[in-house]
């Protein structure tokens, strides 16, 4: 079958191949730690509100944080035991977040009121999306967008293709790869449940060709399933970016500032699909996920971690650090988020815990732009990174906006290719954050004015 891909992009070869090698043949191991800390803002949108207090006994799957609005999902206890703290903890963002800590009693008792809906081919399609919401499912590829919001379209929009994202283009990570080999049936079940819920006839499972075992396993699982097919992709970064994957598979381009649904496509990560299958078939909420623990650890592994496992515990399960770590981050080397220390808990979107040694994590000083244009050739969106960088560094965010910095997906391809080692991506993130804050302030001011006008 013809292998598809998108325009431009990069090949982070040494990172992708060497980084993925230690774990690609490691079967998924279950790991339950002594305690977990579940942060309440595990999704984009409004954080959940804790509904337990210190000293409460909780069971696995019990709701401990209630959704606070449409753009919000509940948080469930991932282990059974006693709640030891409900407090603000520093996390990866600028402000501290609310978190619930639970001490494990290792009895692993589930809540009694699970509502399994049974076989995905016979389930009432209307019940699927509420089940996804109640199970607390968010996009597990990294963005943690609430899945039920993604599957609820605005008036007039329709979907004709669902793409399951098995590209896993990030370096170091093999969690999706292993999941596709070991839980291929579940992924197809999840896809079928969504296809039936949205009345979509076409389901495409897109997998990069550096994972032939996963392609074979998924093809086997997809045989005989209505409308489902496996599509091999060229190995290229950022193939797993939502917009890039849509362009590669369907040839459609998501418009600037638009969403996949504008081109009638929904993209779901393989982990999300498996979680949907668990939620629909067994009625089980999202309480665990596969995470690759690799880098400078003694025994790199793929672990099925309970949500909220402390990074230190997961690293300890892998034999600890093999050398002094310089940097530990959640996610792959291209888009991962650095941890301030290793006592930070994992969230629903943590697909990897990667440790770099001191040599690998040393950052290089930037030098002046030499106008070679490699960043332009690399940008999967088609932006001019060198121009945006100048605008952002000068504090001219309005110019950066005109140069479409808001379409930047922060994949880091430009910075990876830059021979002058310009810090392109961090300045784009900074510009995007500044513009978002400005837009928010403007919207708030407009709202206040409107209110004032009404009062008169």
């Amino acid at each position, binding site marked *: 079958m013809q292998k598809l891909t998108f325009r431009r992009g990069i090949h982070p070869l040494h990172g992708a191949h060497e980084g993925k090698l230690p774990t690609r043949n490691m079967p998924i191991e279950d790991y339950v730690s002594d305690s977990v800390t579940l942060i309440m803002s595990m999704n984009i949108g409004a954080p959940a509100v804790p509904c337990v207090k210190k000293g409460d006994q909780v069971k696995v799957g019990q709701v401990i944080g209630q959704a606070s609005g449409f753009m919000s999902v509940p948080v469930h206890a991932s282990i059974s035991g006693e709640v030891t703290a409900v407090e603000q903890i*520093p996390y*990866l963002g*600028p402000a501290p977040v609310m978190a619930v800590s639970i001490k494990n009693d290792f009895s692993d008792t589930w809540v009694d009121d699970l509502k399994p809906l049974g076989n995905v081919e016979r389930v009432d399609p209307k019940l699927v999306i509420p089940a996804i919401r109640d199970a607390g499912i968010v996009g597990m590829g990294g963005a943690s967008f609430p899945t039920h919001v993604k599957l609820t379209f605005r008036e007039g929009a329709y979907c004709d293709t669902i793409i399951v994202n098995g590209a896993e283009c990030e370096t170091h990570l093999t969690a999706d790869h292993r999941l596709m080999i070991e839980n291929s049936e579940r992924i197809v079940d999840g896809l079928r449940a969504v296809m039936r819920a949205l009345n979509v006839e076409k389901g495409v499972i897109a997998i990069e060709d550096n994972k032939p075992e996963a392609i074979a396993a998924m093809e086997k699982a997809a045989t005989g399933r209505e409308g489902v097919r496996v599509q091999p992709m060229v190995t290229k970064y950022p193939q797993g970016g939502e917009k890039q994957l849509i362009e590669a598979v369907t040839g459609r381009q998501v418009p600037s500032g638009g969403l996949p649904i504008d081109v009638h496509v929904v993209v779901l990560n393989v982990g999300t699909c498996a979680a949907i299958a668990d939620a629909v078939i067994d009625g089980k909420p999202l309480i665990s996920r596969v995470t690759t623990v690799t880098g400078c650890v003694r025994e790199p592994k793929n672990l099925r971690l309970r949500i909220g496992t402390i990074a230190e515990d997961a690293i300890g399960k892998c034999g600890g650090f093999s050398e002094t770590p310089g940097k530990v981050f959640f996610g792959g080397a291209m888009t991962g988020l650095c941890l301030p220390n290793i006592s930070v808990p994992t969230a629903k979107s943590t697909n990897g815990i990667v440790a770099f040694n001191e040599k690998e*994590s040393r950052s290089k000083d930037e030098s002046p732009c030499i106008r070679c244009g490699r960043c332009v050739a690399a940008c999967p969106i088609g932006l001019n990174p060198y121009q945006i960088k100048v605008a952002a560094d000068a504090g001219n965010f309005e110019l950066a906006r005109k140069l479409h910095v808001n379409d930047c997906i922060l994949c880091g391809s430009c910075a990876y290719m830059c021979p002058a080692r310009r810090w392109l991506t961090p300045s784009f993130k*900074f510009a995007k954050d500044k513009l978002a804050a400005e837009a928010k302030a403007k919207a708030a001011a407009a709202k206040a004015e409107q209110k004032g006008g009404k009062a008169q």
Partner: protein
Amino acid sequence: MTIVYAGLLLGALGLAFGGLLTFAARKFHVQVDERIEQVKECLGGANCGACGYAGCDAFAAAVVAGKAPVNGCAPAGEKGVRRISEIMGQAAPDTEKMVARVLCQGENGVAMERYAYDGYKSCAVAASLAGGPKDCRFACIGLGDCQDKCKFGAITMANGIAQIDPEKCTACGACVKACPRSVISLLPLSQNIIVRCRNSDTARAARAVCMDACIGCGRCKKECQYEAIIVENGFAHIDHEKCTRCGACAKVCPCGCITIE
């Protein structure tokens, strides 16, 4: 002979156009208040924009038009304000020279480090990563956003903290706006007794993140005979009008966070 004709022709053309330009200059002359130029000469001249106008030219025009106050340009200093007032024929307003002060002493080793930051050199970026590289959420991050914005070279970064030279500082306020932590504040130059901490957490939490944090104990307040100190939001504030600069508070402060310049 040809060269003479050419010379005469060019000379005549020159005279004709010269006459035309002189006529145009007289006829279409725009009346400009010469005070604008005079006022401009008294200003800081850095086009810093701290006055709220597009630059020194725009501010000078606004002063002459009576739209901006004569003391609106902080970098002009006391002398400049006096001269502008003379030009404008007003009494010079009483302006106290202000200076930007860094209200933090959380140097490397004093404020606890949350992580070693090795990224994009910007305080605003560092502040958005896991709450910043120092444990204290009020501390100076020390990557020099203020230094980049200072047009007078008054700010230097030393040992993970900003230091402002009061001699060079013109109190334009650019650093105050640039600081993502609002650590810098404009204070009167004569106010040499300064509370160098803004940690509003509880005493215990503040002390856990910085050796020099104000814990809001109130000993300075008790010591002050002029009721110039209040302890609010967990840290001490000095009322600059009541303060007599006696320095008694600094002597009793157990945390060393009140300093005498």
